């Protein structure tokens, strides 16, 4: 018994060490293979392209940026090769995609990834491989608490904090309530957001309900908001959830409550699906609101996306920004472009201002990154989004 146990342990140890050896050697080996001054500069991204929730626009937008750079002569004469992988919303596929990109393809950085599982699954691997990811859309809390990842978007937690801040400090509502759907490991991150707002303003939510499920009938919840006397309600539902929520509000004929949503339902599809049923609903745009046709800040983004047939969405803005920040950083590198030099450039990065965000993009060598700390509040009216706050609502507190 003991002998066989020892044998198993030994086998496991051998397997482990050989596995470690592989994962440590190969990235370095292939990195040097694609590095230097010749050949293409390989950039990767891990995305939800198929499955129940898909974010295809971020990587399409990033590709549009890279294609334009290539058409204009590349980075010091070297073309960018952008490798887009699909994680299917599946952690195993995400892990496989990241290992293929880093270990086999030898990418020097990741940019424009938009996925629900990439950060949670791959953050330790990215740190271990010494590679950086300029995330286009970070959702999972890990995206904002890894040394190797810095998303360009604000993310649902900061979005929540901004909404609470906007409700209590700008709209001056006394009774602010929050109804949250907690998916996966997001409970603590949302808790931190609410605690941060409480610390900042000294206020607590009248209702802090975290039991909404994606397939719940929202009617009992909106009735609870009414019963508890909420004046402003924050809800973090996705597109279909927000639609159902506002329809329940309309059905129950509830008036006098401000409904604040995160970025997720700020889409043309939601505006169209809700029509006038969504009148008054707020959402928090984490980039310069894309529905503003005349915004000069969006001129370049809009013309590039239109030219390359990428849908005009918030996700597209994230991909565009991530790719643009990466290109700027690559251009600043003196000497060969390798995984090490790219990582070093990001660790020493000075904050990059952009008209698309309210706060500059940062990387640096912090243990976690959440540099986009502002939003513009938009409101639905007659099936159209309009911007309520022409100036950025910057969140003065910190999360975590």
């Amino acid at each position, binding site marked *: 018994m003991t002998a066989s146990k020892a044998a198993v342990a030994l086998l496991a140890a051998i397997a482990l060490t050989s596995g470690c050896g592989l994962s440590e050697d190969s990235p370095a080996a292939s990195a040097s293979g694609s590095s230097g001054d010749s050949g293409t500069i390989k950039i990767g991204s891990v995305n939800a392209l*198929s*499955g*129940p*929730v*898909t974010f295809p626009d971020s990587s399409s937008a990033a590709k549009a940026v890279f294609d334009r750079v290539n058409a204009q002569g590349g980075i010091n004469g070297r073309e960018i090769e952008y490798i887009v992988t699909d994680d299917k919303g599946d952690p195993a596929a995400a892990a496989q995609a990241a290992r293929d990109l880093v270990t086999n393809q030898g990418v020097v950085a990741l940019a424009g990834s938009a996925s629900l599982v990439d950060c949670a699954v791959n953050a330790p691997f990215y740190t271990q491989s010494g590679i950086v990811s300029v995330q286009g859309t970070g959702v999972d809390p890990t995206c904002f608490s890894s040394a190797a990842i810095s998303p360009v978007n604000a993310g649902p937690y900061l979005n929540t904090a901004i909404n609470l801040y906007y409700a209590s400090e700008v709209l001056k509502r006394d009774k602010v309530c929050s109804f949250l759907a907690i998916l996966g490991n997001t409970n603590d991150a949302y808790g931190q957001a609410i605690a941060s707002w409480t610390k900042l303003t000294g206020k607590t939510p009248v209702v802090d*309900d975290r*039991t909404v*499920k*994606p*397939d*719940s*009938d*929202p*009617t*009992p*919840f909106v*009735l*609870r908001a*009414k*019963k508890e006397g909420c004046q402003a309600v924050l809800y973090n*539902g*996705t*597109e*279909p*959830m927000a*639609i*159902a929520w506002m*329809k*329940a509000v309309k*059905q*129950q*004929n509830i008036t006098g409550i401000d409904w604040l949503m995160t970025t997720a339902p700020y*889409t043309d*599809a*939601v505006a*169209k*699906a809700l*029509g006038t049923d969504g009148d008054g609903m707020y959402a928090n745009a984490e980039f310069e609101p894309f529905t503003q046709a005349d915004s000069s800040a969006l001129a370049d983004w809009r013309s590039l996306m239109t030219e390359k047939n990428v849908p005009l969405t918030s996700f597209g803005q994230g991909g565009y920004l991530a790719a643009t920040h990466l290109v700027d950083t690559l251009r600043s590198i003196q000497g060969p472009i390798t995984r090490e030099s790219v990582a070093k450039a990001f660790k020493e990065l000075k904050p990059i201002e952009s008209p698309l965000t309210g706060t500059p993009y940062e990387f640096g060598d912090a243990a976690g990154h959440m540099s986009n700390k502002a939003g513009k509040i938009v409101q639905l009216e007659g099936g159209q989004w309009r911007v309520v706050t022409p100036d950025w609502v910057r969140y003065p507190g910190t999360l975590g």
Partner: protein
Amino acid sequence: MLQGVVSGLAGGGTFAALGLLLTVMYRLTATVNLAIAATGVVGVYVMALLVQAGWPYGVAALAGIVAGALASVCCGLIMTRWFATGGPQIRTAVSIAQLIGLIALAYICFGDEPRVLPNPADGRVATVAGVTITMGSVILIALAVLIGTGIHVLLTRTSLGLRLRAMAERPITTELLGIGTRALTVTVWGLSGALASIVLLLVAPVRSSDILSLSMLIVPACAAALVGGLRLLSGALLGGLGLGLLEGALAGSATVQQYRDVVPFVVILFILVWNQRGEVWDAAR
């Protein structure tokens, strides 16, 4: 409390209607058809596509119901063609595969973008305890009762019902008696698909309308059907209504609402154990 209960009416009607369809399908085809809500989703999305293309709602909804029926017929054909002699366990496993297949296909065909879903019954009927009762809730509950009583009458009072029952209980004997069972079975599948589509056309505009959420309405529907032991129509009807009211009541109460998802299943577990106390005792002896 009363407010919560009233707000759960729509959910109760939905669970009851789907639970009844599950029960009937189990009695007539010996299959726990877990894909029944998903076939209704096909109906909803076909309707949405046609409305988007400019069709009037009535015609689009009718086409959606036909599409839902066809999707269900396809599932039924697969079941009768290749798994006719498999037991209920095998057929239920196949229906899980069909559920996953339908969801995957629906995502490929319709995508994950929210659709414009007109509500055929968004009028307000009354206000009870501060809750507006919509036309949709009333129609759903009426539909559930209608499905329940209609099927009860069909099965117990008509010769078609007699043949259907014979086919479900002794398929081979029925065939030997010269009654073609395949067409009958497929008709049952088609009708269930059509009814599920009608239910979902009423539900989708007021709930989270993504493909996965709607398909997963099968879970509370299963719970409702289990209350009737998958045999009693009255059990499924009352089970579904009770589950909806319970869900509403618990969502409105601050103290118990965090256990909201658990309570219905505890209740069902209790009912199942209670119902089977005799059998367990007999088997033990």
